[in-house]
C-alpha cells in the first residue's frame, strides 16, 4: 500500500465527481460512521491507514450517493463508484477467509455460553465475540494488510483511494444492520454459522433454511377449509355464534415512533432520496389518525378525517 502524505492533495485541486443518480446514500449524514461496536471496528480498519483527506472525501462520496452498487460475496466485495469520469470506477475487495477447521474451533468456543447463539440468532453481534475468536486464535476482523486487499480502477495511485474509502464506510453502515456480513466476508454465511453453532448446543436444534421458509403465514399453516353445505352454517353468524372479538387493546398510537420500524432498522444500502426510517415513520404517523378513526367507527371519508 502506498502512503504519500498530503502533497497530491495540495497541488492538484480535487476534481468534482459527476452527479450519480440513485446511488447508495449513507444514512449517517452527520458525525462518525457506524453505531455498533463491530461496525466501528470495521471503520477503524480504513481509518488506520493514513490517507489524509481521502478519508473525508470518501465519507462525502458515501453521503452524496456516489457509490452506485455494492455486491458482497464470500470473502469478496465488488462495487461501482461514480467519480469524475463518465464511466464509474470499479472497486474490488478481497478479504481472507477462514478455514473450515478454524470455523469449527470458533463454533466450539462460541457454544460454551448461551449468549453468543442467542444474540446471533437475534441478529446481533455479542460484544465479547472477538475475545472468543481471540481464544481460538482466529481473528474475526482482518488485521494485517495481507488479510484485506483492495483495488480501484481510478487513476489515483494511493490505495486505499477515496472510492475505496466510500465503499468501506457504506459497508460499515450495512454491518450495523446485519452483523452476519462480517462472517460472510470471512467465508461463512449466516445459515452456515447457525448450523455450526447448533451442532454444539446440547439439544442440537435444527436450523431451518430461511430461503425455503414460506414467507406469509397463510401459506405456512392453513389447511383447506371446505364450505359447509348446511344453509344455516353457510350463511352464518348471527349475534349468537361466538362472542365478538374484542380488539380494543392499545388501539392508540404508540407515543413517540413506530417501534416496529425502529426494530427493523435501516434499509440495506438505501439509495432513496428521503432518509428511509424518518420518511417511513412520518408516513405511518400521518396514517395513524385514519386508522384510529376507522377503528372507532368514526371515519366518514372524503378527506374529512375523523369526526371526533
Amino acid at each position: 500500500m502506498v502512503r504519500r502524505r498530503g502533497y497530491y492533495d495540495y497541488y492538484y485541486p480535487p476534481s468534482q465527481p459527476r452527479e450519480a443518480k440513485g446511488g447508495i446514500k449513507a444514512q449517517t449524514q452527520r458525525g462518525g460512521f457506524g453505531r455498533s461496536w463491530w461496525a466501528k471496528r470495521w471503520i477503524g480498519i480504513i481509518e488506520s491507514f493514513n490517507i489524509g483527506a481521502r478519508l473525508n472525501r470518501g465519507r462525502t462520496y458515501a453521503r452524496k450517493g456516489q457509490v452506485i452498487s455494492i455486491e458482497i460475496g464470500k470473502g469478496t466485495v465488488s462495487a461501482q463508484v461514480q467519480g469524475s469520469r463518465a464511466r464509474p470506477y470499479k472497486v474490488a475487495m478481497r478479504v481472507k477467509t477462514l478455514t473450515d477447521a478454524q470455523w469449527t474451533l470458533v463454533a466450539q468456543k462460541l457454544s460454551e455460553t448461551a449468549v453468543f447463539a442467542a444474540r446471533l440468532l437475534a441478529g446481533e453481534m455479542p460484544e465479547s465475540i472477538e475475545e472468543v475468536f481471540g481464544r481460538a486464535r482466529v481473528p474475526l476482523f482482518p488485521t494485517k494488510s495481507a488479510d484485506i486487499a483492495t483495488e480501484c480502477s481510478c487513476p489515483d495511485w494511493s490505495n486505499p483511494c477515496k472510492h475505496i474509502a466510500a465503499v468501506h464506510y457504506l459497508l460499515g453502515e450495512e454491518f450495523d444492520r446485519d452483523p452476519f456480513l462480517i462472517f460472510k466476508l470471512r467465508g461463512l454465511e449466516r445459515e452456515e454459522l447457525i448450523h455450526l453453532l447448533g451442532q454444539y448446543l446440547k439439544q442440537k436444534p435444527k436450523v431451518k433454511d430461511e430461503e425455503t421458509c414460506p414467507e406469509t403465514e397463510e401459506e405456512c399453516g392453513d389447511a383447506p377449509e371446505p364450505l359447509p353445505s348446511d344453509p344455516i352454517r353457510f350463511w352464518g353468524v348471527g349475534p349468537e355464534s361466538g362472542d365478538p372479538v374484542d380488539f380494543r387493546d392499545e388501539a392508540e398510537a404508540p407515543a413517540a415512533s413506530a417501534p416496529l420500524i425502529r426494530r427493523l432498522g435501516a434499509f440495506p444500502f438505501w439509495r432513496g432520496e428521503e432518509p428511509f426510517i424518518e420518511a417511513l415513520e412520518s408516513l405511518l404517523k400521518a396514517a395513524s389518525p385514519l386508522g384510529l378513526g376507522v377503528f372507532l367507527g368514526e371515519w366518514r371519508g372524503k378527506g374529512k378525517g375523523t369526526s371526533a
Partner: protein
Amino acid sequence: MIVLHMGVYLGFPFLWCEAPNPEFVGSGTGGGKPSKSRKSVRYPYDPGIGVLAEALTKAGTEIGIDPHEKNPPTALFWVPWTKEGPAPSSGLIADLSGPDDEPLLKPCLVEVYPLCGRETVELLCACMGKRTLDRGLVVGNDVSFWAEALRFAGSLIARRRIVPGLLPDEEPARAVWEPVMPGRDAEQLDALAKRMPPAARAFTDPGTREAPTTSARAVLHSFIAESVDAMMRLAPPPPFKTSAKRSRRGDAAFPSVHDAWFDALTTPDGAVEAEKREVAELTGEIKRWRRRLETLSNASLRLCLRLEEPGNVMGTGRNRRVLKNWFVRYLIHPRNDPSLLIPLEDVWSGLKRKKERVAALGEDPLEFALASLGQAAGICPRIERSLHTEKPSGYELDTPGAHEFLTDKSPTLEQAGFGVLVPSWWTRSGAKAKLSVRAAVRTEKTKGSGLLSLNSIVRFDWEAALGGRQLTFAELQTLAAMKAPLVEIRGQWVEVNASEMAAAADFLKSRKAREATLLDLVHLQLGAREAAPGLAFDGIRAEGPLQGFLEQLEGRRSFEELPPPESFSGTLRPYQVRGYSWLAFLRQWGLGACLADDMGLGKTIQTLALIRRDWEDNGKGPVLLICPMSVAQNWRKEAERFTPDLSVYVHHGLTRRKEEDFKKRAARSALVVTTYALVQRDVRFLKEILWDGVVVDEAQNIKNPETKQARAVRSLPSGYRIALTGTPVENNVGDLWSVMEFLNPGLLGNRAEFKKRFFVPIQSRNDADAVSRLKRITGPFILRRLKTDRNIISDLPEKNEMKVYCSLTKEQVTLYEAVLKEVREALEGAEGIQRKGLVLATLSKLKQVCNHPAQFLRDHSSVPGRSGKLERLTEMLEEVVDMGERSLIFSQFAEMGELLRQYLEETFGMEALFLHGGVPSKKRERMVERFQDPTHAPMFFILSLKAGGVGLNLTNANHVFHFDRWWNPAVENQATDRAFRIGQTRNVQVHKFICAGTLEDKIDEMIERKKGIAEDVVGSGEGWLTELSNEELKNLFSLNKDLAGA
C-alpha cells in the same frame, strides 16, 4: 327489500345483493342435484347490480356502480341447494320452510361490483353497528363481519403494526403495505376468522369446476392486508421535500429503484416503475430488511418472563434452594395456549418426567428461546448478563432491580412482544398499596349545624395514607428519605416513591385546613375532581350525618325505604319501593338521578310515586315531564291511574297554551307533560317557570349534547332532575356525558375534558382504569335493574300485563272523524240485523284507522310515520331486540299482519314470521319449529288472532304485543298463553296497545268496569257491543281529541 352482501376473492372485496324473487318457484326451475351442464345458472335471488346501485344511491353512499352497465362482472357463487333450489340468506328473501333433504353445494352466477379501496372503507364504516343502511336495504351478516375485520385493520394502522413490502410477481411490480400480526394480534385474527360466515368466501371465477376451499383465516388475512394497504393510501401523505422538488422540476424518472418503490407506497395503484433486474434486487433487499421480523413473528412459541417475589424455590433435588432475592424466570409457552407455561430450566434439563410437557412445545424450543432471549437482551442488560452461562433460566434481582423491572423493563418487553408476568399486587389497580392523600372533615364544624345541603360549607384537613394507614408528617418525611422503592409493610409489598412522598409532604404543609361546599366534596369523593396533582386520592373521612350521606351515595350503606306516598293508588313492588326511595334520597340532596331499569319494570310508577311524594312535601310546584309524542298519552293515563288527585296538563298540539296563558295553567297543575319537539320550540316561556322538577323520559333523546333539543332541556330551571331510559346509558360512553350534564351539571367536566379523560381511553383501548373511574363518578346517579336480576325476578309476576296508550296522528284523527260522521247519520234509521252489521262494520273501520291509515284505506300507500301505534311498537321492539329477546305480535286483521311484516322486516332488516289463516298446516308447523329454535329463530312472530290463538307453543318469546284488541279477555289471554305456558323460563310481558281517547280506550274502560261480571255477559265475540243503545254507541265511538293527541 335488498340484502347487501360482500364477498372476498383473492383478497379483493366486491359487492353483490339478494332480493326476493316472486317469479322463482322452488321445485322445477334449476333445482335438484348440481347440474351436469357446463353453463352455470343464475342465482335466482340476485336482482342484479343495477338494483343495488339504485338502493345505495338512495341510502346516500357513494359507490361508483354504473346502473346501466350492460355486462356487469359476474362471479361463481357456491351455495347450498336443495330440491327446491338454493337456500337464501334469510327468510327476508324467501320462505325458509323448505324440504328436509340434504343440501348440496352448487355454483351459480351472481353479478358483482368490485370495490376500490376507498369504497370498501367508506361503505364498511357506514355499515358499522347497523342492521340496515336505509329502509329496506339490509346489511348482511357478511358485510357486518367485514366491517369488524376493517376495524381490526384500522387498529393495526393506529398502532403502526405495518411494514412496507413489494409484490414482485405482478405486472408491474406493486409496492404494498403489509400488516404485522405477532402474538395477541395473531390470536385475534384466529378468533375473528372463526366468526366469518362461509358465504363470505364462497366465490370463484366463472368457469371454475371446484368449490373454493381457501380457509377463512387465509381469506381474512388477505382482506386485512388489502384493507391496510388501501387505508394507507387514503391518508394524506406528509409533504416530502424530494417529491415536491421532483414535481417542480417535472422529473418523471426516479433516480433509483428505491425512490420508485418508496413513492409507489403513496400512489393509488402502487405500481413500481423499474426493470425486472432492479425489482429482483429490491425484493431481496426488502427480505433482508425484514428478516428480524420473520424469525419471531412466525414462531408458534412465545418467551415469557415472570418476576417472582423473594422466598421462591429454585432448582430441584440437591440443587434446590430458597431465593433471598427477587427472581425473573424464563418460561416458554405455545402461542395459542398461554396456560402451558414451561420453565426454560425444564427444557434444558431434559429430565424424563418433564419430557412430555416439553414435547408440547414442538421441535426447536431451544433455538426459539435463544433467539428470543437474544432479542430481549438488547432491551435489558440484565438479561444479556444472564446469558453468560451454558443454560440460562433466569436471573436474580435486588429490590431496586425488581422495581426497575416492574416500572421500566416490563412495559418495554411487553411492547416488543414478550410475555411478562408480575405479582398480582402490582397489577391489581386499587390494591396496589400506594401513597394517597385524603380529606378529613372537621366534625365539630358540621356537627349540630342543622340541615346539610349541597351548598353547606364544610371544613376539612388533608392527611396522607399509605395502603390505607394514616401516615404522620414525620413518617412521611422518613419514607421520603428512604432509598428503597419497594418496602414490605405487614407482609405486603408497597411501592414507595421518594419524590411522591416529598410531594405529599409539601402538599400537606401548604394546605393545612380548607373549606369547600358539600357539592365540591361530593365531586372530590367520587373522583370527578383531582384532589392533589400527581397524588392518589383516597376519599373523604367524615363522621355523623355527612359520613352517612357519603356512604349512602356510594351505596356502601343502604337507605331508608320509604312508605308509598299518601293517596297513591297503586301498589309498589319491593324493588319499586327501593327505586322510589333511591329517587327520593337523591332528590332530597338536589342531585339528579337516572333510572335505567329494564323495560317493563315500572319506571313510570316509581317516578309518579316520587312526584306525588315531592308534591306534598315541597309546596306543590309543577313538574315538567318531557317525552316523545308516542308516550305522552301513556303518561297522562298512568298519572290518572296512580295519582288521581294530581292535576295533569298535556302541553301539545297547535292550539296549545302559550306564554302567560301557559304559565297560569302550569301553576295550577302538578304535572305538565310535553314533548321534546315542543320544549325546543317553546323553551322561551318554559324556562321562565321555576319547575319543581324536570323529568325526561326516553332520555336517549338528549344523548347528543349539541342538538337544540338537548340544549333546551338543559336550560330549564328545576329543583330536581330525573332521566328515564330503558337503554343502558352506562354502556355507551359517548352518550353518557349529555345525560349526566343534564342531571348533575359539571360532574363529568366539560365535553372536551370528558372526551380526553374517558371517551378516547375507553373506546380506543378499553382502558380499565378509565372505566372504573367513570363508573365511580356516575354510579351513584344511575340505577339500572334487569328483569333477570335474581332479586327482581322474585318480585315480578310471571306474567306482567301492561296497557300501552298511544296517540293518533293528524291523518288518523281526520279519518276517524270522517268515519264517525258517516255512521252518525246511518245509525239513526238502522234496525235489526242491518243495525248490527252497521255497528260491527263501524267498529272494524275505527279499529283500522287506529291501527294504520294504510290498512283502512287499503291503498298500499307508504307506511312509516303515519300511525301512533306503529311508532310506539317500533320503539318498544328496538329495546326488546337490543335485549336479544323475541316477540309475538297479535293482530286480528290479516292485512295489518302483512303490513307489519313488511314494515318490520324493512325497518329492522330481520325476518318476521307471519302466521295467518291461509298458511297450510305443514308450513305452520315448520314456522313454529323455526321460532322455537334456540339459536337461529327470527326475532318477530306476527300472528293473526284467529289463526294463532290456540294450540301453538311459542315459549321462545317473552314479549307479547296485542297491536289491536279483541274485546274479549278470554280470547286475548288464550293468545297470550302461546308464550306463557310450560317451558317458559322467563317472565312474560304483555303489552296491550290502546289509542287514547278513541273507542279502544272507552271499550277498555267498560271492560275494566265490568270485570266483576261473569264472562258470559261479554260473550265470546264482540257481539255484545251491538246491544248498546244509539246514545251509548255514539258516546263509545266519539273521539276525545284532547286525549288522542294530534
